[in-house]
């Protein structure tokens, strides 16, 4: 690793609490993925988890009110583990304790929405929530194959 040039991609992304800003995430993830040689299925899972986590913060944490900040930080742990840390200043919400299984229901009765957190937990290697004094820290971990 010592001969590898410093990562040219910033390791932290600062976003405003609005849906439009979520479009900035996947180009950043893809730039990180290229530099760190993260395989496509893991990149897909990262994009899915970050979209769900951040959409949840905007919609439910900040109640669709722009003007607040959220950050996503990228961390590596050794050669094969990486994580994305999402921080906000919204009221405390622990997405790791929501019910996990969606019971199979007929199409007509299927509820729209509410799949986001479930999908995040299915596609992440690990999800850890930590309350901050004024906000939340969500650490979403992935193990490279």
């Amino acid at each position, binding site marked *: 690793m010592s001969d590898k040039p410093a990562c040219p991609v910033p390791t932290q992304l600062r976003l405003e609490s609005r849906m439009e800003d979520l*479009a900035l995430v996947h180009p950043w993830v893809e730039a990180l993925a290229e530099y760190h040689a993260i395989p496509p299925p893991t990149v897909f899972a990262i994009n899915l988890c970050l979209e769900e986590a951040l959409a949840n913060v905007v919609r439910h944490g900040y109640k669709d009110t722009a003007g607040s900040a959220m950050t996503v930080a990228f961390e590596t742990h050794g050669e094969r583990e990486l994580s994305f840390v999402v921080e906000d200043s919204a009221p405390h919400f622990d997405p790791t304790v929501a019910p996990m299984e969606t019971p*199979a229901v007929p*199409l007509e009765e299927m509820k729209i929405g509410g799949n986001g957190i479930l999908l995040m937990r299915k596609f992440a290697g690990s999800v850890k929530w930590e309350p901050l004094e004024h906000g939340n820290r969500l650490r979403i971990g992935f193990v490279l194959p």
Partner: protein
Amino acid sequence: MAMKATIEEIDGGITRLVLDGRMDIEGAQAVDLRVNVIAGSADKLLMDLSGVTFLGSMGLRSIVLPAQAIKRRGGKMVLYGPIPMVEDVLKGASIGSIIPIHHDLDSALAALRG
């Protein structure tokens, strides 16, 4: 690249709706209106997902809503050709067991004609 939605009419009253691109929040917003208009008139809809490179929960909404609208009118909708990760999302949200997924075009068309 913005998400694209194109349609093609196939014999037997089948509409093939081809979605291309990332079905993230932005992509779903870009095609929602068009997809809903198509779902409002098609009775047999083949939703071709083979060009969809990403699917999130907002994109799932763009699949479930038209399927519900078509079913309410007594029509049918099937999904065709999702890449493995997209199929994992469909199955992860228990949609695979509710809206049939086909990887063979002939079997998808036969399911709609049947």
